[in-house]
């Protein structure tokens, strides 16, 4: 019986898993599944953004003073790097759809390099905060204007939100790395473009989070 069903679906070729009717349905299921995961990510980051908004609302003038500690050139460079990585990721999806594997791998490699570049710049920024004791904890020190308690709050939010974002970047590097390995060595499992597309969706989401983090932390108005 099951063999008969398998035979019936033979013409869809073996890209389609047995629980799906056809490739189109399979692809839509994957995309919807990925978006439901991203909806969860939006909820997760959204709550943190709300927390940030509430404190920013309460201590706007203090936050304006503290945000001058952040280097807008480094933040801006990182924004451009992430935008470029998103662009190359979108190209990688396009090449995967066209089955141009060499170009796909090069685009993915560029994306990973951008991700590492982002983390290196982020690392320099964090290292500077650790040198000046601007990280939350018992040794936190604030000599500038504004309340030291609110300064610690600001830097807690900064480290919390950019830290979670950086964690997502690390996960993205791992995912893209595995995808590159599979594309190179075990092509069949990533024969369809959908795995690339799903990792692309994840990566673009990480980019979007930064698109909001950048103005919220680096461009606070007076």
């Amino acid at each position, binding site marked *: 019986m099951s063999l008969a069903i398998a035979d019936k679906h033979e013409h869809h070729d073996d890209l389609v898993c047995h629980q799906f009717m056809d490739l189109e349905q399979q692809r839509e299921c994957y995309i919807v599944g990925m*978006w439901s995961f*991203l909806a969860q990510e939006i909820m997760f980051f959204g709550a943190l953004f709300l927390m940030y908004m509430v404190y920013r*609302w309460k201590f706007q003038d*203090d936050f304006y003073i503290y945000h001058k500690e952040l280097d807008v050139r480094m933040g801006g460079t990182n924004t451009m790097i992430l*935008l*470029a990585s998103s662009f190359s990721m979108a190209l990688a999806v396009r090449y995967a759809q066209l089955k141009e594997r060499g170009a796909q791998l090069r685009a993915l490699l560029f994306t990973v390099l951008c991700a590492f570049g982002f983390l290196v710049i982020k690392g320099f920024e964090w290292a500077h905060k650790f040198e000046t004791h601007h990280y939350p904890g018992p040794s936190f020190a604030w000599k500038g204007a504004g309340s030291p308690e609110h300064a610690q709050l600001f830097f807690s939010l900064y480290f919390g939100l950019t830290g979670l974002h950086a964690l997502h970047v690390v996960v993205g590097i791992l995912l893209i790395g595995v995808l590159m390995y599979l594309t190179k060595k075990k092509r069949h499992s990533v024969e369809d473009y959908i795995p690339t597309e799903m990792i692309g969706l994840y990566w*673009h989401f990480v980019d979007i989070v930064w698109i909001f983090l*950048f103005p919220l932390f680096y461009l606070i108005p007076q």
Partner: protein
Amino acid sequence: MRHNTAHDENAPHHIPSTGLLVRTFLALGVLMLLTIAAAEVDFGHEVFKNNSALGTYVNNGVAMLIAVIKATLVVSFFMGVKYASKLSRLWAFAGFVWLTLMLITFGDYWTRSWEPLQGWAAASPQARPDVNRDRNFAPLTSESRETYGPKKPEAASEGSE
């Protein structure tokens, strides 16, 4: 019908052109520079002549508007939601709808000081009235402060900054 004979049977329905992706990337880069340039403008003092509270709103509004436009570009073209199936679009939309609903919570913090009630004023005065500008649209009057305001004498000057 969708499986055009001229194409591979497994080809996706829509493949974004390189030109579209390049244009999206360029637009994102321009918007990135624009948001930094807009942040340099002090709307409170340069544009609205010392209405610094309004200036803060405008600065924040411009920064967030640009961020939303950038996110929309990424979602539409890089993530391909513009060309996705209706079901996928619904799911992509759901997360952002929820986000909007959640941000309505913020309206509570925003408007709490508009309507001073006993307890609220004590629970939610600006923590440092000396540094934090008054952005209450309806600050306590001397009469309502007696009735509803905080009981502590040192907090009596709050709201008049």
